[in-house]
């Protein structure tokens, strides 16, 4: 059976994020003026996801090398998007990620005071990215780069839990049909299964209906969404389980790893479903 391998320091896994940096990401989420700009929101969500990945790998006082993490930005250029000391690196170990944020901010978070109210507590928030929104949407190039990086990765870690690729975008590819290269990417595999490609599409329209892990393309609104549906993997058993825990209801076994026209909570949930590792030891 696939997607059963234990994630350990001897057999680590990999998370690769593809982030749309195109100009349209500067418009507000769901097209609602008071909402954050998509680029700002995606960066905040991504920083939070990376922080969660660091905390998941945290054991006592160290960060264990359970996975490698990479971020590819695509817009006016296509390439590794981690900044600071990690600049130019396609993949870094999670402990290197921990040690090299751009900065650590202190933010206030609401927590239960145990008596029915809330208190604000200070919490550390690591920042690895600042928002960018510039250029077109060269999704094919980004997928090709992901393919090249992971082609080498699966050669090196033949028995590992396969890599997860999360493509965060708000629009259609401007450099051709992304389906063939997405298929090549999904066809890369370790002995434990194929690379998983999850698509998170941020909504630009307040009236658009969110489609959350659909099991057929019929419910999707247009050609762009159907192309993204075809690009995406089927949800893994672990993702199905995490999704049903978060949503409080089971998903269809054939659900595809795509959230289309995602709202704020949809983006956050999809990222959590994509990055909660199975079998971590």
């Amino acid at each position, binding site marked *: 059976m696939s997607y059963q391998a*234990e994630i*350990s*320091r*001897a057999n680590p896994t990999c998370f690769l994020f593809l982030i749309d940096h195109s100009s349209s990401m500067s418009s507000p989420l769901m097209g609602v003026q008071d909402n954050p700009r998509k680029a700002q929101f995606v960066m905040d969500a991504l920083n939070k996801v990376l*922080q969660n990945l*660091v*905390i998941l*790998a*945290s*054991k*006592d*006082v160290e*960060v264990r090398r359970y996975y490698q993490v990479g971020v590819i930005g695509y817009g006016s250029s296509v390439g590794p998007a981690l900044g600071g000391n990690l600049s130019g690196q396609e993949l870094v170990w999670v402990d290197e990620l*921990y040690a090299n944020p751009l900065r*650590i901010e202190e933010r206030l978070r609401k927590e239960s005071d*145990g008596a029915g109210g809330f208190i604000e507590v200070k*919490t*550390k928030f*690591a920042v690895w990215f600042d928002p960018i929104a510039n250029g077109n949407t060269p999704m094919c190039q980004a997928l090709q780069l992901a393919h090249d990086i992971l082609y080498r990765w699966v050669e090196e870690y033949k028995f590992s839990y396969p890599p997860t690729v999360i493509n965060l975008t708000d629009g259609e590819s401007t450099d051709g049909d992304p389906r063939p290269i997405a298929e090549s990417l999904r066809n890369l595999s370790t002995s434990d299964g194929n690379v998983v490609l999850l698509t998170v599409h941020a909504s630009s329209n307040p009236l658009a209906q969110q489609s959350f892990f659909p099991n057929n393309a019929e419910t999707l609104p247009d050609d762009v969404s159907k192309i993204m549906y075809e690009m995406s993997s089927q949800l893994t058993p672990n993702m199905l389980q995490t999704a049903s825990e978060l949503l409080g209801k089971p998903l269809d076994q054939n659900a595809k790893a795509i959230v289309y026209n995602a709202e704020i909570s949809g983006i956050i949930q999809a990222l959590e479903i994509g990055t909660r590792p199975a079998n*971590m*030891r």
Partner: protein
Amino acid sequence: MEIIWQSHTLAKDGNCQEENEDAFSPNGNSAFSGEEPFICALADGATRTSFSSLWANLLVKSLADPYLGLTDSAVSTAQKEWSQTINEMKLPWHAEEKVKQGSFSTLLWFRVTPNPKESGEPGGPWEATAVGDSCLFQIRNEELITKYPIARSEDFANNPILISSIPERNQQIWETLSDKATRGTWSPGDQFLLMTDALACWFMRKTEQGNMPIQKLFCALQQPEVSDQSGFEKLILELRDSKAIKNDDTSLIYITIN
């Protein structure tokens, strides 16, 4: 009442012994003779949470009094000590955030008591309480007569209920714990085995298949240490190699009572 015990542990492959998150009491090989109750405790710290080894060790330590059981108050002592130890550490931010989730562990408490001398009856009562999937087995004349708290190998799950170092997270445990406690009687010559889940699951599955894992286990425990490797370690490594047990910290306390 005379008790002879031996206890063993082996960290999962890929981890060093310092990373082993199982904790137990008593340690080593020895014997006890007397009319006092005798206590064993076994805890299996959760891999996913931080400082689980510290937590498992504090839980075992909190159950040392032979006249107290696995109670809210014993666990509360361990929780205070855990909290104090963590607060005294200077933690990096990832650890500071992680530790807010608390540490988690299984816990198995076991006590044997002799019948009063004046009764003239050999043997006596035993009691056990378990949270999670660390298991107790009672063997009489090479036959498995008690399995606790899990009755079938298929009932071992990946997410057992665990005791938390954060008091608010244990509410559900205390509400049902007394219903889950068990008791029985022992006769001279009985053997008791306390095991963490990987070994317990194998032991139960083999028994269900009609094999005699008891003999295999006893045979391994009687082997002399060769090149710093005990018979227990050799057996566990063999079972891991053949995928008969999962790769996990593995511990055993083996008691013979007379």
